[in-house]
């Protein structure tokens, strides 16, 4: 499966993402610099974690207006799979590809640990290899992961099953204690209405093999392969 990783100045999870994509998709992804106006013909575009342009103004704000993002938006509108992790999720909301915004964590601290998540929707091209309601463990590492959207947007997200991942406890309960960053409705990841753009704060690409502590993240990328094969 052909893929590309967009690289912004200060992206630092781009190589983790590239390793995951190469291992699971079986082909090295194209690494595309933020100043490029074109992206190779690929089936899957990843926006990695880290920072971008110093995250000046707001996290992801500058990156969302970079030359390469105009092309990412165009590809997304053509139906190509676009997957944003952490800073990539922030770039997706800032660019308007996903609704809402990511604000400073409610506790104000940078959070770096593993978190339990519930797969709320396994009928997407990114999650079809997970069981419905499956509880997974992905690493999180962010300062601005507190998901906010207005009441109408939240209602629409819930009604359309666009909330794909929620922060939960080990038993799968979306409790206030499990909501590590104060996100509305414990939201950890959402998909667009068309079903081809997924953004999430946790890092599935960091947990794809047992030697690294687990492989809960692997099925996300395998889902993308299965979805493409069935398309």
């Amino acid at each position, binding site marked *: 499966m052909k893929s590309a990783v967009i690289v912004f100045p200060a992206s630092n999870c781009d190589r983790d993402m590239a390793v995951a994509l190469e291992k699971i998709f079986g082909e090295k992804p194209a690494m595309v610099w933020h100043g490029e106006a074109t992206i190779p013909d690929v089936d899957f575009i990843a926006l990695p974690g880290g920072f971008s342009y110093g995250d000046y103004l707001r996290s992801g704000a500058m990156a969302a207006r970079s030359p390469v993002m105009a092309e990412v938006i165009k590809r997304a509108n053509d139906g190509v799979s676009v997957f944003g992790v952490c800073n990539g999720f922030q770039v997706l909301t800032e660019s308007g590809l996903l609704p809402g915004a990511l*604000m400073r964590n409610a506790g104000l601290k940078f959070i770096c640990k593993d978190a339990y998540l519930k797969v709320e929707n396994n009928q997407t091209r990114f999650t079809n290899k997970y069981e419905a309601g499956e509880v997974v463990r992905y690493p999180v590492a962010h300062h601005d992961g*507190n998901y906010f959207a207005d009441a109408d947007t939240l209602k629409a997200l819930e009604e359309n099953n666009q909330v794909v991942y929620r922060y939960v406890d080990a038993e799968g309960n979306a409790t206030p204690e499990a909501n590590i960053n*104060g996100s509305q409705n414990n939201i950890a990841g959402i998909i667009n209405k068309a079903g081809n753009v997924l953004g999430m704060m946790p890092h599935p690409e960091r947990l794809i093999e047992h030697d690294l502590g687990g492989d809960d993240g692997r099925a996300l990328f395998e889902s993308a392969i299965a979805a493409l094969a069935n398309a």
Partner: protein
Amino acid sequence: MKARVHVTLKAGVLDPQGKAIRHSLGSLGFDGVEKVRQGKYIELDLAETDKDKAMAAVDEMCRKLLANTVIENYSIELD
């Protein structure tokens, strides 16, 4: 012409930083502060001399980059 832009969080959007500032003020002995909301101030020097055109341009800048209208309001002053 100078444009002064204030960007503030919309009412109803949680401001954890504002809350932390209020807490710190309290520990310094400033007890009467009931609420703190933190925002941004951006100053722009513009080549434009027509006030209406400058206002329209800065308004567009706010909508496209300076503010995230999902969570923020903005106000513009020109002089």
